[in-house]
């Protein structure tokens, strides 16, 4: 492989990885975030305690979180073909990653919202707040924690995207496995590794910066 070929390959891989992470994080958040709020509201000490709904949602989240991700990707293949029209490539990876991360995002959201003391919720209720206003308050109070959760989700998804690479999922993980593992082209694999580390560092550092700026809870 010439240097130009390697650069082209890695550039494409990096772009694909960015798409995969952006796409899967967006979809996982789109569904996982409301699910997390619902879990928080319906729990026994929540604003709308509904034992049956909480039980079902909680079981669903636990069930999905207990399936090893690699198995989940394989299990999702038929569904993936049905929903996005293919079971390999970036689209299929985004689909599988998003579905796999929804319960994870939901649990992180639920836990973040629980960081607000019960007395704060009580205080806001005694001020005459509607339930919607209480939820808004919870979101504002836990924004730094929710953003931290988002960064954890993104970094987890980078790891999972590499696993999806085992099945031709696209992105840097895919290249690392195809060139490094199957063809013994170690330099390419290490380049991928370095790029992945840079990506994770970039995400972590930017989120740390934003969260630190937003978080007024600590002195």
């Amino acid at each position, binding site marked *: 492989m010439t240097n130009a070929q390697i650069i082209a390959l890695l550039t494409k891989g990096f772009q694909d990885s960015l798409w995969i992470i952006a796409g899967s994080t967006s979809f996982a958040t789109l569904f996982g975030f409301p699910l997390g709020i619902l879990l928080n509201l319906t729990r026994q000490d929540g604003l709308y305690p509904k034992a049956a709904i909480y039980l079902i949602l909680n079981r669903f989240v636990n069930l999905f979180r207990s399936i090893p991700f690699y198995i989940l990707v394989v299990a999702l293949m038929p569904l993936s073909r049905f929903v996005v029209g293919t079971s390999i490539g970036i689209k299929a990876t985004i689909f599988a990653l998003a579905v796999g991360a929804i319960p994870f995002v939901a649990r992180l959201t639920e836990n973040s919202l629980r960081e607000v003391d019960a007395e704060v919720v009580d205080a806001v209720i005694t001020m*005459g707040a509607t339930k919607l206003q209480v939820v808004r308050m919870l979101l504002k*109070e836990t924004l730094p924690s929710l953003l931290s959760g988002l960064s954890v989700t993104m970094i987890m998804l980078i790891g999972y995207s590499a696993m999806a690479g085992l099945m031709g999922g696209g992105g840097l993980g895919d290249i690392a496995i195809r060139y490094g593992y199957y063809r013994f082209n170690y330099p390419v694999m290490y380049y991928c590794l370095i790029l992945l580390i840079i990506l994770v560092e970039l995400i972590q550092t930017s989120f740390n910066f934003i969260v630190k700026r937003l978080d007024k809870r600590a002195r």
Partner: protein
Amino acid sequence: MIEISRLTKSFQLKDRTVEALKGVSFSLQPKEILGIIGKSGAGKSTLLRCLSLLETPDSGTITLNKVNLILADEVRMRQYRKRIGVVFQSSPLLKQSTVYDNIAYPLILEKTDKALIDQKVKALLKLIKLEDKAHAYPSQLSGGQKQRVAIARALVSDPDLLLLDEPTSALDSVTTRDLILLLKEIHQSRDLSILIITHELNVVDALCERVLVLEDGCFVEEGDVKTVFKNPSHAVTRELLGLKVSYD
């Protein structure tokens, strides 16, 4: 005037039912400061949660200016809650909001005009002597300052009743004295009744005209503070008085 009549509340635990309130009745006149004292587990917290309309009693009535608050629907209940300003023990402020926004919060919820909010919040900041902390966050305040902000927040909707739950239990003696002075000032300058639920008798002694002693979900003694504290008739009152320290 606030009248509480035959309030009962029980909780179902796993293996038994706990009767937290066994038919308590009392009334609070306009501008009166009433103290309710009792040991831990006497039913103080349940009473406070019922009075702040966070908990619905099993039976009995809470009447504010001749309206029974218990029978209200959700919309009316929210209106009534604004008539009662509650100061909780842990001064639960919004940590992501400034002192100014914390005090303004009840008015922001009502979508009050910004100019009016500004006027009211500034007056309250002056009252609690924290004008210089308007843009600080709760994490930058001391325990006493937080409690002052919580009091200002409870006052911003001009309530008929100010309900305080153990307002000084987390404060040192000097800060407690300052808070007592602040409450006296509020009592003099504002047209509201104040109800303090506490186990700290020195606070009741310094502030209240009348005191009720709660034990095991019932009132066991009632009277003006000086008389009750001088000649306690019930064993619980005597026990509580044994713990009394003076701030004079």
